[in-house]
């Protein structure tokens, strides 16, 4: 079983829709969970950062972590065409530890 699994998509949704992106993982030692956004041929840009289980909200973005199910989610409300990008889930065991990435989900928001 791969350490971090993420559906690569592509996922196409109409502008204004709620987007749900998900990852599963196998390593129960992961404590820090991140979502990065990556535009084509650019570096990953940190969107959300969560420690352990729970929800975190930042504007139109909500991150959820369910450690019992080893499942994390990112929700985007009122999606915009500018949200079109690849979204990478990522996690680590400790703050200074290496980050393990999912393969990324390509998201297209249709105007």
């Amino acid at each position, binding site marked *: 079983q791969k350490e971090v699994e993420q559906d690569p998509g592509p996922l196409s949704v109409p502008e204004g829709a709620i987007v749900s992106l998900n990852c599963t993982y196998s390593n129960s030692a992961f404590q820090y969970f991140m979502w990065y956004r990556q535009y084509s041929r650019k570096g990953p840009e940190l969107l959300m950062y969560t420690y352990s289980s729970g929800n975190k909200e930042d504007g139109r973005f909500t991150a959820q972590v369910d450690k019992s199910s080893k499942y994390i989610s990112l929700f985007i409300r009122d999606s915009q065409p500018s949200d079109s990008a690849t979204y990478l889930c990522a996690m680590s065991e400790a*703050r200074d530890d290496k980050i393990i990435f999912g393969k990324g989900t390509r998201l297209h928001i249709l105007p």
Partner: protein
Amino acid sequence: EPEVTQTPSHQVTQMGQEVILRCVPISNHLYFYWYRQILGQKVEFLVSFYNNEISEKSEIFDDQFSVERPDGSNFTLKIRSTKLEDSAMYFCASGRLAGPTDTQYFGPGTRLTVL
């Protein structure tokens, strides 16, 4: 807002040549990392560096690779004898990691093409 910078943005080299990729981390950061992303693949960890020494390295980071912090601002990745399979985007990341919400911030990457 401070950011991680990397140079060059694109490097083309011949197989067997040495390349040095350069990074300027965010100034008050203490932890430094290199990752790579082969086209169409996931971002993979290469090496972490703290207190002037390697903290951890992946199996990808073999004897052909080395890292250095030659002065107070730069962080470099050297590939001694490049192979075709080294072609990838190389990302530098840095972090202060002093507080509960600190994490690693990534640079824009250097695209390495080995011919």
